């Protein structure tokens, strides 16, 4: 009696991990090469940027918001930072001065990203505009600013700048290492700091959070600064990996993949519930679908149908789980 109860609980708490395992088993049955080390590295490298953005997005969703401008702000950060590191011998470079030191440019780019996020975070926190609308607006603005800054892709970037995006340490891609670092950072912020606790409280009941002495506005600014910071990390990885930053296409519609990963990972859109490990699982599920179904030569449209079903299914499951508790 006691045992069956535990098993049910285990299954309901870890249902998305079971979905992931099932997907992996199915795909690898039809295509044994799927599980090869090379393919796993390809898969992770491909999902790293979206994953990092999802680690930012989950904070927004957990505080009952959303950030639709991560893709666009990534494009802006990528374009601006790439223009600072174009090789000196490249005739068509955007700026007249030579490549600046990469570590400096990267730090500045991350700061720039965080500032963009803090700006629209402040807009949301102090004017109380719904985050959906506010970030829809900033998405258009950021994308347009990137295109105004340069009307063509910024390419021929210095190798030092590209190291994070395409470099390797002992054969292991840096992009995956950055992904792991961002995972750890997100988990630390969420569970080990006041900021993380405040995000949960605001998402769970913002009025109660205010009465408990939490500075709700400042926390919201922090949430969007973190989300845009994650986008900036993604921007540097994208530009480094591709070797160029395209103002029109870099990060295009990445925000939706980030929302999808966070949602599949059990982040509640009614606020107050999220787990970094869950979001990781969400990213991996999307990765297995993207990579695995391509390997199986499944039609692109079918792949999207599977994605759609999993997104909807995961929310239905979560809602039923939470409803049962009431």
């Amino acid at each position, binding site marked *: 009696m006691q045992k069956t109860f535990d098993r049910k609980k285990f299954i309901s708490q870890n249902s998305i991990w079971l979905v992931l395992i099932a997907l992996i088993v199915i795909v690898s049955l039809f295509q044994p090469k799927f599980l090869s080390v090379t393919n796993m590295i390809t898969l992770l490298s491909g999902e790293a940027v979206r994953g990092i953005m999802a680690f930012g997005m989950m904070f927004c969703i957990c505080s009952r918001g959303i950030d639709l401008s991560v893709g666009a702000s990534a494009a802006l950060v990528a374009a601006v930072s790439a223009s600072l590191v174009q090789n000196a011998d490249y005739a068509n470079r955007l700026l007249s001065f030579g490549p600046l030191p990469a570590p400096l440019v990267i730090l500045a780019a991350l700061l720039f990203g965080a500032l963009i996020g803090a700006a629209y975070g402040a807009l949301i926190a102090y004017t109380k505009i719904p985050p959906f609308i506010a970030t829809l607006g900033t998405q258009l603005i950021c994308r347009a600013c990137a295109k105004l800054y340069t009307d063509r892709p910024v390419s021929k970037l210095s190798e030092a700048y590209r190291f994070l995006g395409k470099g390797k340490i002992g054969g292991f891609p840096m992009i995956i290492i950055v992904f792991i670092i961002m995972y750890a950072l997100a988990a630390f912020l969420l569970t*080990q700091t006041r900021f993380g606790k405040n995000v949960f409280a605001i998402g769970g*009941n913002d*009025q109660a959070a*205010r*009465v*408990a*002495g939490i500075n709700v506005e400042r926390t919201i600014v922090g949430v969007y600064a973190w989300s845009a910071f994650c986008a900036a990390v993604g921007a540097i990885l994208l530009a480094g990996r591709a070797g160029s930053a395209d103002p029109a296409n870099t990060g295009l519609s990445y925000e939706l993949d980030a929302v999808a990963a966070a949602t599949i990972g059990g982040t509640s859109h009614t606020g107050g519930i999220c787990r970094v490990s869950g979001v990781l699982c969400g990213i991996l599920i999307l990765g297995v679908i993207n990579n695995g179904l391509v390997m199986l030569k499944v039609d692109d449209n079918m792949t999207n149908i599977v994605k759609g079903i999993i997104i909807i299914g995961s929310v239905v499951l979560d809602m039923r789980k939470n409803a049962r508790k009431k």
Partner: protein
Amino acid sequence: MSQEYILEMTDIVKEFPGVRALKGVQLKVRPGRVHTLMGENGAGKSTLMKCLIGIHPPTSGRIVYDGREVCFKNTHEALNAGISMIHQELSPVPERSVAENLWLGRVPVKGIRVDHKKMREDSFKLFKSLGLDVNPDEKMGNLTVAKMQMVEIAKAVSYDSKIVIMDEPTSSLTETEVEHLFRIIEDLKKKNVAVIYISHKMDEIFRISDDITVFRDGEYVCTDAAKNLTVDKLITLMVGREVTEMFPKVECPIGETILKVENLSAGRAVKNVSFELHRGEILGMAGLVGAGRTETAETIFGLRTKTGGKIYKDGVELNIRSPEDAIKNGIALLTEDRRGKGIVGLLSITDNTTIASLKDYGFPLNHNKMRADTEDYVAKLNTKTPSIATQIQNLSGGNQQKVLVGRSLLTNPDILIVDEPTRGIDVGAKAEIHALISKLAGEGKGIIMISSEMPEVMGMSDRIVVMHEGVMTAILDRKDFSSELILEYATSDIPCDPDVPPTDPGR
């Protein structure tokens, strides 16, 4: 068998995953009588009613209604069979008209078109028959909470039910409306309708009940005619032990002034309120709904914008602009709106306890210390919970309140403002919270206690501030306390001068 009872529920068992909420209880209701259900929070009163009207069908048991055995699967079936319920929590559609709210789910139609004319006329007729002064065309959201509750009551009555269930219907009503409700109940009785009444307010219960059934911890205790019972007897039955003292006021020395409020104003809600609070003092705040007491507390706590006046603590003027500032300055608030502004339901007891003091736990947060402090307060306040990792929404109201008290105390305040500290809390927990408030005053803290329960505010306070529509109308000393006097001031329009001893406003 017999038509003596309109409703007979026997051996009702209700199990939720992991909990046995009802352990084979019974309830027998006669038509044309007011049958009150009593018991502490979590005793199973509301659950039993939810079993009856099909929100949570019972796990086992027998329900005989109007001579036949029934088991309603949803509220719709119950309504059609003639059982309507006024819920404790309102669920209005604030953007639509009163009439639309009233006929929600059964809008009169002509063909496929909504018959707006009939809807309005029926609403007028209904309100007139109940003597209610509400305009059916008004937007629901524009009504006061009390008026909304009256509309809800009208709605339940309009089904022409044989049984009307009222779950704490008076919690947001003013005195006049309570009287009105009682007249409606009398009318229902004349029409041979049975009323099942759930309330914690003893005076109400003894005024209107014919029969009383007591539950304790999901078990049936007894049923008796109200005239055979007394308050003390009832409390003993509910708690299962004798609660010796309801208001354990401990006389303790009153120290120097800790908080001074001068001409405090907040828009139209609070107008020129001035008073002093001393160490070791419990300052009561009495008044009717809308008197501005909660608003005064919220202004002091920085939750509401101050539009005038000054606040001093220990002689130093404070500039409080947010709850954060207030907590930093040693002021804590226990809110009246426990669900809305108090608990974060999804989070654990630990998180809810430590949320206001996170800065004391360092970087990264010291989770061991957080858990230790929480365990400490759970033990000190005698909070009943399976574990400190339990989500607070799974606790009963009284235990949630204890967690919130723990949260306030953890910020180590010198001044504690408690707003309706025992609203909706069962008798046992109530006495514990009263004892705790007295103890804190004894430790030299200054306490402001807002309460709408006359015996509570009179039993606990050293002095009482009386307010009416944002204006302070009196400060009374303990020797002058009487419910008549307080009520008189609570309806008086004359502001009091804090330097002049109060005079009787009637003369």
